[in-house]
C-alpha cells in the first residue's frame, strides 16, 4: 500500500485524470515525445476516446508540474541537428501509478447534453428529442464500429489489457444505445397513447 495523502493524490483531480493516469503508465513503459505518447495512448484506449494530441501535450505539462514527469530536449531520431522534448518518468512516477490503480474514483457523468434537453423538453419537442436520440444512437454505433476487433485469444499481458479495454467500450456503448432505444420507444408509446 502506498501513501495516499492529499498531496500525493492531487494530480488525480479533474476530468482528465484517466488520461493523465494512462499517460503516466505509458511513460513508465518507455519515455517518448508528445506525438509518440499521443499515438500510443490512442492505440491503447481505442478510437472511442478520441484522444486529442493537443490535450496530450497539456497533460504532459501538468504531469511535469506535479513532479511525475520530466522533459528533456533530445536530438530527433534520423535528424540529429533537430531536437524535440522527450518526456521521462521520475522517481515518484511508479508509486503514483500504483496509488492511482488503488484509488476508486467517482463515475463520470455521461450524455449530459441529451439529459439536459430531456429534463426540460415540452411535449411539442418530442419529434426533436427523437431526432436527437437517434443521432446519439447512431454516433454510439459509429464509435462501436471503430473499435479494433479482437483477434481471438489474448496471448500477452498488453493484449489482454487491450481486450478488456475494448470490452469496456462495447459494454458502455451497448448501455448507451439501449438507453437511447428505450427512450425513443417510450416517447413513441406515450405520443401514440396521448393522440
Amino acid at each position, binding site marked *: 500500500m502506498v501513501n495516499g495523502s492529499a498531496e500525493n493524490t492531487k494530480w488525480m483531480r479533474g476530468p482528465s485524470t484517466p488520461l493523465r493516469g494512462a499517460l503516466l503508465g505509458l511513460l513508465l513503459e518507455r519515455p517518448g515525445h508528445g506525438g509518440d505518447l499521443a499515438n500510443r495512448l490512442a*492505440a*491503447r484506449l481505442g478510437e472511442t476516446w478520441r484522444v*486529442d494530441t*493537443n490535450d496530450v501535450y497539456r497533460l504532459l505539462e501538468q504531469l511535469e508540474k506535479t513532479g511525475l514527469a520530466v522533459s528533456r530536449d533530445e536530438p530527433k531520431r534520423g535528424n540529429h541537428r533537430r531536437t524535440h522534448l522527450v518526456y521521462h518518468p521520475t522517481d515518484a512516477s511508479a508509486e503514483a501509478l500504483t496509488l492511482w490503480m488503488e484509488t476508486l474514483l467517482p463515475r463520470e457523468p455521461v450524455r449530459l447534453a441529451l439529459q439536459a434537453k430531456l429534463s426540460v423538453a415540452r411535449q411539442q419537442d418530442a419529434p426533436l428529442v427523437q431526432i436527437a436520440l437517434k443521432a446519439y444512437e*447512431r454516433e454510439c*454505433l459509429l464509435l462501436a464500429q471503430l473499435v479494433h476487433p479482437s483477434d481471438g485469444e489474448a496471448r*500477452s499481458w498488453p493484449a489482454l489489457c487491450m481486450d478488456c479495454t475494448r470490452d469496456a467500450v462495447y459494454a458502455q456503448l*451497448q448501455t448507451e*444505445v439501449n438507453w437511447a432505444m428505450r427512450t425513443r420507444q417510450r416517447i413513441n408509446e406515450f405520443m401514440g397513447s396521448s393522440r
Partner: protein
Amino acid sequence: MTSLLSLRNVSKSYHDGGREIVVLDAVSLDIDPGVSMGVYGNRRSGKSTLLRLAAGIELADTGSVRFDGRDLATMSAGERGRLLRGEIAFMSAQDWRATPGETVLDHVATALGSEGLTMREAKRRALGTLEQVGLGAAGAEEMAAGLSLAGRTRVMLARALAREPRLLVVDEPALMPGIGDRDRFYALLRSAAQQRGMALLMASEEMAALQGVAVLASIADGELCSTEERGTVVRLPGRRRAGGERAER
C-alpha cells in the same frame, strides 16, 4: 456497385389475439458483395424477423427484398428454397440437428446433396471447409452428435460455408459457442467472410458479437438505425485525433 441484398420499406406484422404487432416498420438496408453488417437489438426487437426476411425464409407484408436484383416475393417457394441452400446460408443456434452415428465429415458433406456432386467430391469439399474452421481430418471423423458447443458451432459454420454462399446470415452468434470461445468464433466468422469475399449479415443482443463489421445498425420498435444511411453522411466531431500502433498479441 449493385447491392447483393436490398430491402426497401419492408414491413412485417403479426397478430397476437386481436392485436396487430408491427415487428418491422418500413425498414430499408443495402449490403454490397463482400460487405459485413451487424444488427444490434434486444429480445423481440424484430432482428430475427429481419434476418428471416433477408434470407427468404419469410416474406414481407409490404416493401421489397431483392437478392442480386431478384425480388424474393416473385419467386416460388421452391426457388427461394434453392436460393437458401445455395447462394444464401442461414445459421442459427436452434438449427443444430445431427443424426446419431453420423460423423462430422458426413454431416457437412450431406449439406452438399443438392449440388450434383458425387459423395467423394462432397467429402473432399467438406474436409477443406472443416480445415478452414480449425477442424482437421481428426475432427472430421468424430461423431457429430457428441460434439461440444464450441465444436458444434464450428461444424455449423463449415456446413454453411461448404455450399460457398455469397451471403451468410447469422442469427445470434453470441448464443453459439461456449463463452470462452466467443472471440475466437467471431474472428473465425470475419476471416471466413473476408477470405471468400462473402457478405455477412449478423444480428445479436451482444454488441461485442458484431465487432469488426463494416456497417452497424440497431433495431428497436421495428425501426432500424444504421451507421450507413445511403445519401447521408454522418460525421464525428472534427478534432485533431491521434492514432497508430496496436499492441502485439
